[in-house]
Each structure stands twice: as structure tokens, then as C-alpha cells.
């Protein structure tokens, strides 16, 4: 027996505890979602998902992610370049400000946009005069989602870029490459798995956000509902099987996310 391991009995105990805890808190909810989703059969399941409101909610969810993720990606790349490559005053403060949305309650995240863009908000009158609708409309949903997923890409990229060091960029510069060319030809390929990883996590959160979006959505069926809100609506209409069917799409999305994430991690590991 190696000195780095425990007696068999303890090993089995630890594994059992780990697996049991895991089953109780992770596997059961997952099973529960799918079991309920298919409780009325496959036809009902398909019909639920083909309902125009469900489709509209999916479309809204996809559009939200399509806007939020690229914006946060650009931000994440810029911020990680800034933080990994430069030394400047207030870097620590900037870092914690970037993480700030993670410790803000989703309810507050939604609320602040109402306070800013709502009819009674700071900019409400100005926007109202110009017939620009932000909250209770797609832009509000997108903004709240961007807020909530704000640090997701940056958090993944900063350590990757830090670990990468500056040498390759410097090498490219001494070889006569311009700043942009260095960025595109050297930096981006080096962090591409980190970028993908960040996108995957950011996307999962963007598509799944409930609290913040719920505050700013207005819950207009077919117009301002995202998939998580659609789940809630169905649930409140006592259509439990349908609610879980919609939820299962999100759970499925979560599983796809995890598979993609694991694959990306594998790629990252293989490259090092």
C-alpha cells in the first residue's frame, strides 16, 4: 500500500459518503426533472415544446444569450489582457469590482435596472419621451443577463492569460509583428480553450438566469418570457408536466454544457 492512501475501509467510506451526498443533492433533482417531464408521455412532451409560447420563450432565451455572451466575451478578453499583462494602480480594486455581480443577489441585479430605466427611474422620463422601452422589454432582459453573467468569461480568462506569461507576445513583437497581429496570431490561439470554456459557462448562466430576469421581464406571454420564466408560468398554471418539460430543456442544456465543458477541459489538458 502506498503511503499516499488510506486503508481500504476508509477509502470505501469516503467514496460512499461522496457518492451519497452527490446522489442526494445532484442526481435526484435531475432525475426528478426528467421523470416529471415525461410523466404524460412523449407526445405531450413534444407538444408542450412546440407551443408557440414555448418557442417564443426559447427564441428570447437564445437572443439574450446571443447578445450577452459576445459582449461579455469581448469584455472578458479586454479585461484579462489588461489584468494579466499590465501592472497598474488599483488593479486589485478593479478585480473585485469585476467580481461584484457574483455577490449581488439576482433580485437586486434586476432591481437596479428598474431603478435606472423604469418609468419612475432616473432615465425613465427621458426614455419615455422618446418612446424607448428598456425594462419590461427585451433590452432589459438582455441588460440584466449581461449584468449577471458579467464576470463569467473574464474570470476564466484572467488566470489562463496570467499563466501564459508575456514571452510569446514579446517574441512576436521582436519578430516585427504589430500589436494587433500579435494579439490575433499569438494571444488568441493560446487562450482559445479558455475562451471557449468561458463562453460555455457564460452561456449556461445567461440562458438559465431566473431571478434578475424575472424582475425586469414584465412576463408578457410570447413576448418577454425567457425559458426559465416560461417554466414558472406553466408551473403557475398548474401545468406541472409541461413546466417540467420546459425545465427539462434547460436541464438538457445544462448537461450539454457539462459535456462541452469536459471536452474542452480535455483539450486544454492535452495541449499542456
Amino acid at each position, binding site marked *: 500500500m502506498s503511503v499516499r492512501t488510506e486503508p481500504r475501509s476508509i477509502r470505501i467510506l469516503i467514496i460512499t459518503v461522496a457518492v451519497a451526498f452527490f446522489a442526494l443533492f445532484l442526481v435526484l433533482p435531475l432525475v426528478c426533472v426528467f421523470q416529471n417531464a415525461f410523466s404524460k408521455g412523449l407526445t405531450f412532451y413534444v407538444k408542450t415544446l412546440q407551443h408557440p409560447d414555448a418557442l417564443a420563450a426559447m427564441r428570447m432565451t437564445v437572443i439574450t444569450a446571443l447578445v450577452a455572451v459576445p459582449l461579455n466575451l469581448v469584455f472578458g478578453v479586454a479585461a484579462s489582457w489588461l489584468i494579466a499583462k499590465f501592472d497598474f494602480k488599483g488593479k486589485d480594486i478593479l478585480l473585485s469590482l469585476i467580481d461584484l455581480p457574483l455577490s449581488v443577489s439576482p433580485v437586486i441585479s434586476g432591481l437596479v435596472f428598474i431603478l435606472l430605466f423604469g418609468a419612475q427611474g432616473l432615465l425613465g422620463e427621458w426614455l419615455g419621451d422618446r418612446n424607448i422601452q428598456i425594462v419590461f422589454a427585451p433590452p432589459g432582459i438582455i441588460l440584466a443577463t449581461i449584468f449577471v453573467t458579467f464576470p463569467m468569461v473574464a474570470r476564466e480568462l484572467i488566470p489562463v492569460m496570467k499563466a501564459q506569461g508575456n*514571452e*510569446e507576445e*514579446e*517574441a*512576436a*513583437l*521582436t*519578430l*516585427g*509583428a*504589430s500589436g494587433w*497581429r500579435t494579439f490575433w*496570431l*499569438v494571444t488568441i*490561439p*493560446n487562450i*482559445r480553450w479558455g475562451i471557449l470554456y468561458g463562453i460555455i459557462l457564460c452561456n449556461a448562466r445567461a440562458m438559465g438566469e431566473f431571478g434578475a430576469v424575472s424582475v425586469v421581464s414584465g412576463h408578457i406571454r410570447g413576448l418577454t418570457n425567457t425559458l426559465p420564466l416560461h417554466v414558472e408560468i406553466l408551473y403557475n398554471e398548474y401545468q406541472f408536466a409541461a413546466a417540467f418539460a420546459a425545465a427539462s430543456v434547460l436541464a438538457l442544456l445544462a448537461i450539454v454544457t457539462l459535456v462541452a465543458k469536459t471536452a474542452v477541459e480535455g483539450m486544454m489538458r492535452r*495541449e499542456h
Partner: protein
Amino acid sequence: MSIEVRSIHKSFGSFKALEDVSLHVETGELVALLGPSGSGKTTLLRIVAGLEKVEEGQVFFGGEDASIQKVSERGVGFVFQHYALFRHMTVFDNIAFGLNAKPKNLRPPQAEIRARVSELLKLIQLEWVADRFPGQLSGGQRQRVALARALAVRPKVLLLDEPFGSLDAQVRKELRHWLRRFHDEFRITTLFVTHDQEEALEVADRIVVMNKGRIEQVGTPDEVYHDPANVFVLNFLGNVNLFHCRLDDGKVYFGNIGVEIPGVASDNARSANLYVRPHQFQITRDAGTGTSIKAAVAYVNPAGSVVKIDLKRETGEMIHVEISQAEFAALKIVRGDIVYVSLRDVTYSEYQI
């Protein structure tokens, strides 16, 4: 192309990395920047390359002020300590990078790039790895690829940061000789950083010894080894014995033994520190003329090109001596023998008047 560095100052936060450093490297010279870690040698190299900005001072290439040029315009070939090969590109693409990165109107045609890369691969004797990725190469191979990549753009000067720092002893030696041969053939002005005195002594035309952000001495390997400008240089380049002694009447006194030493002027000095390299001693079985020191043999290591012997004086002081294998064979010294040591020469001396 010659390199000139004029009164460079550089600090990182409150740490002064370089203080008033000036240096001139002739066209076609191979110069080593030698010093312990933290001495500022890498910083100086990076400043020459333009990888580091300076607060004060200038860098000239061939008499032209390069300080205003960006790193990408300086036309330097820089080889990084950890090679900094682009790990997502093949060896071929790595070497071709500098050529491909040129603006469209200056970029050579692809055929020319291919020819140039092939030529370089041949030069570094690695034609067969062209399609591999850096991760699949050994350390020595990576080092050579990094060099080829730097050379591809036909740099005016070649700058190498600890080029052999992370290689095994054997590969290191080979590459060292290869670099020397390469330089003799192409005569590109080259500046390289090392903390290994043996490497600097063996490869460089001239050595710049640095310490704590200042240049201590610039000279040929012979000069810095045999005629060090100060104690730091002396200590840094090879082992040395230190003797504290009294001077009187033209003689040097260790305890109560007076020894006449060639080259030690003693006009009106009272005490002195003598620095003697291990090979500057002579060992004899007999006391001879009485200008030698009596000591017991404490340790003998005959493995190597020279024989290393540790002697213990009656005062308890240790003396490290190196003699040739031939001398050793003649003397037949074993541990515990009593021998007599005399000084052939002194490398460096300090006096108190």
C-alpha cells in the same frame, strides 16, 4: 551592426534594476552579460531589444538612436530563456512567423519564405521536425528552433536570454560550441545573458560582468579572469583563496612566515588581502628555501582534468589547491601528508595603507 547603450536607468517600483549603465558592442562581436540573478543583465538585454522601457538613457544601433523605435521596428533577433515558441504553430510556421508578420507590401513571396525557412532548418540541423509542434521537441531542439525563428528576419543584432539555461549539461556544452561556430561563420553582433561563468568564458569575445544593476568590468575572458577589476568579479569568475596578511619589508607575512611574492608591491602598506586562484599554488615535499607555508593534506580529489587538494595550515586555515595530473603523479600525495605550499602568482590584492 554595433550596439551602444548610454547611461541607462531603470527601476521596477522602488527596486533599482539598472543604474547608469553604458556599454559599447562592436559590429560582429559576441558579448556575454554575466552576473548573478538580480544583477540586471536580463533587464539590460530586454532594454536593448526594446522589450522594456527606460526612464533615462538611450540605445543606439549602428550610431542610430533606437530608443524611439518600437520593439517591432528594431530588427533584433531575440531568443527567450524559455524559448517562447508559439505552441499552436508547427516548427515551420514558428520560423516563418517573422516573415509572415511583415506588412503585405514588405512580405516576401511564400516561395521565398519557404526557402528561407528550409535554409534555417538545415542550419540548425532539424529539417525533419518542420511539421512538428514545439511540445513534441526536446529542450535542445526547441532552443535551436527559437534561434532559427529569430534569425529568419535577418536581424541586425542577435540577443539571447540565458540561451542554455534550462538544458542538461551535455546538451548545453554542445549548443555552446555550436553557437560559437555559428557566430564565427555569420558574425552577427550578438549579446547574450548568462549566469554561468564557464559558459561566458568559453563562448564570448568579451564579457560584461554585472552586479546590482551596475557594470563591474568589461573585458576579454582572459582579462576578467586573470585581471579582475574588483573582488566581486574575482569571486564570481572561479574559486579563489583569500589570505589576510601583514606586509613588511617587501615580504608578505602569514603568521610569522615571511614569503616573497612576485608582483606584490609593498611600498608602505601594512596589511593586505591576497586573492589566489587554486592553480596559482605550487606544492612541494620539502620546505625549500623557507618561503613556503607548511600544511597538512586534508582531502584529495584526483577525478577530473586537474587534481583538487584541500590543505590545512597549522593555524587551521584551509587552502584550496589545484595541480595538474602530471604534478600529482610526481608528488604521490595522500591524505595526512605534510607538504609545503608556495605561491606562483597572485590574482588580485587589496592593501591597507
